[in-house]
């Protein structure tokens, strides 16, 4: 608890980061209360097509070519974005931390093998790999989430590995060996608490990347066909780009704001979790 308040005290100093946190709260609220806000769902044709934003007050952001409410689409789309962003990152986090920690802690041939393996995954152009995976395994929330997780873990694995490699050589970890700690205990009590902060910061950036990747998939028509996503809206809007560009612009702004907020919050986390400890 004391640490949490201390953390918030430091995070609060970055005004922009607090603002970003607010934006994320709003997006999260949209995702949670989507069914309350727009109980009819995003697919319902509620008005006349091609209403520009501001034309009618009850459809604030206008309507698309089928007369569906753009705002309803954005609110419901936040669900897909956040869900896939967070869960895919969790998948990447689990794989990345396991692989990276094992490689960095045990070093030697274990490290060599795991890192060669990671490098292979890093060499395959991630987005291409992503569309291939999703296309072959048929687009659904599950396949998309897993596929994004699979292309995102190498970054985390490398980060965790380098953290483990340096921390393992630190004197305080060596001291753990000298007082007779087991490997598990050293990893859990000495290394992990010190390795985690940069990993958490990077994870926030990976959530952002995952959201962009999901929207790009949907834009290309490889999203879950049963769900309304921001990328799907942009893909649909593209067909009428010349006449109704707001249909492309608005969901894009939603993505931009969310991703921007995540990145700024990541910077804020970084400052709050790694205060430059004064030495000497």
């Amino acid at each position, binding site marked *: 608890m004391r640490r949490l308040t201390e953390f918030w005290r430091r995070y609060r100093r970055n005004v922009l980061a607090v603002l970003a946190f607010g934006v994320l709260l709003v997006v999260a609220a949209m995702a949670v209360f989507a069914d309350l806000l727009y109980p009819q769902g995003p697919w319902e044709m509620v008005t006349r097509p091609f209403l520009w934003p501001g034309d009618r007050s009850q459809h604030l952001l206008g309507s698309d070519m089928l007369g569906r409410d753009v705002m309803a689409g954005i609110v419901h789309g936040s669900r897909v974005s956040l869900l896939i962003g967070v869960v895919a990152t969790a998948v990447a986090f689990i794989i990345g931390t396991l692989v990276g920690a094992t490689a960095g802690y045990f070093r030697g041939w274990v490290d060599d093998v795991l890192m060669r393996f990671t490098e292979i995954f890093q060499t395959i152009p991630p987005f291409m790999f992503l569309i291939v995976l999703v296309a072959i395994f048929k687009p659904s929330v599950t396949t998309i989430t897993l596929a994004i997780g699979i292309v995102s873990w190498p970054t985390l694995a490398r980060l965790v590995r380098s953290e483990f490699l340096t921390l393992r050589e*630190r*004197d*305080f970890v*060596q*001291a*753990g*060996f*000298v*007082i*007779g*700690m*087991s490997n598990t*205990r050293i990893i859990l*009590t*000495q290394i992990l*608490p*010190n390795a985690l902060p940069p990993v958490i910061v990077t994870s926030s950036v990976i959530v952002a990347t995952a959201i962009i990747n999901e929207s790009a998939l949907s834009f290309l028509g490889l999203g879950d066909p049963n769900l309304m996503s921001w990328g799907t809206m942009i893909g649909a809007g593209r067909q009428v780009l010349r006449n109704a560009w707001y249909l492309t612009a608005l969901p894009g702004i939603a993505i931009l704001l969310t991703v921007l907020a995540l990145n700024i919050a990541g910077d804020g986390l970084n400052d709050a979790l790694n205060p430059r*400890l*004064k*030495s*000497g």
Partner: protein
Amino acid sequence: MIPLLQVENLTKHFVTRQGTVQAVDDVSLSIGEGETVGLVGESGCGKSTLGRMIVRLLEPTSGTITLQGKEVAHLRGEASKRFRRRVQLIFQDPFTSLNPRSTVGRILEEPLIVHRLGGRDERRAQVEELLRRVGLSPGAADQFPHEFSGGQRQRIGIARALALSPELIVCDEPVSALDVSIQAQVLNLLSSLKRQTGIAYLFISHDLSVIRYIADRIIVMYLGKIVEVAGHDSLWDRPLHPYTQALMAAVPLPDPQAARSRERVVLEGDLPSPVSPPSGCRFRTRCPHAVDRCAREEPALREVVGGRFVACHLVTAGDGPTDIGPGGPPPPAA
């Protein structure tokens, strides 16, 4: 009588991209119960590697380490854990040797938890006692390492090493990162702890003057080899190995008169690469007295006079230490 710790023919090689580094090569030494052995040498001489093998942070390439007659170099599991209670380590850098995310209390309690010593309250009491013994207030237990100065942190490191009441503590340059005035505090603390508990130290340092103050017996290393072993007084009065002589001549004395009056033996050149050390005597490339034989034959570490060992062809058993003045040339080869 069996010494507390006996090291025989210990060797450690590191394989690097440039080649195999012979960090420690065929080193033997012993440490008696309650004895302070000083290990001195310049960077790259292998003193830290040797220390880390003795506390079993590094696996020796070959050779044996015995603690009271029992082989310890390859212990596993519970036996290894029992060893940890008897031999501890104090680190050089007080800023990196304490976990920045643990409280001081937690850091000191950990050894007790790992070895299941005492219940929660007992451990708490023990932590307070440890803090008191190293001259810190019990309140320090709730603070984090970064709230302390370098000297205070080093005291915390010492308290951690004491927690398991070991018989031997390897001190790896424990005062090198500290200012002189703080260094004196730590050296005094280490010697008073020794008086109280009869603990043995292997004290590693590059600083001959610190070694001379704290050690009963001094071992001088050069490029992975022991070149000389002597009692602290006899080494200071009559260094026998040309390297020891040069090392002592190079130590700046805080006494302008003495500094000016002594002979200067400034060693030429740099330390050779430990990947391809010179043939024969490793010191010969910088030795002012080297002769042909030094390049051909590796000098063995031999006892010259009671308790004094030297690895140099030019110092022979027949020559008493009386023949050699401080800093003077060693006698000609027999």
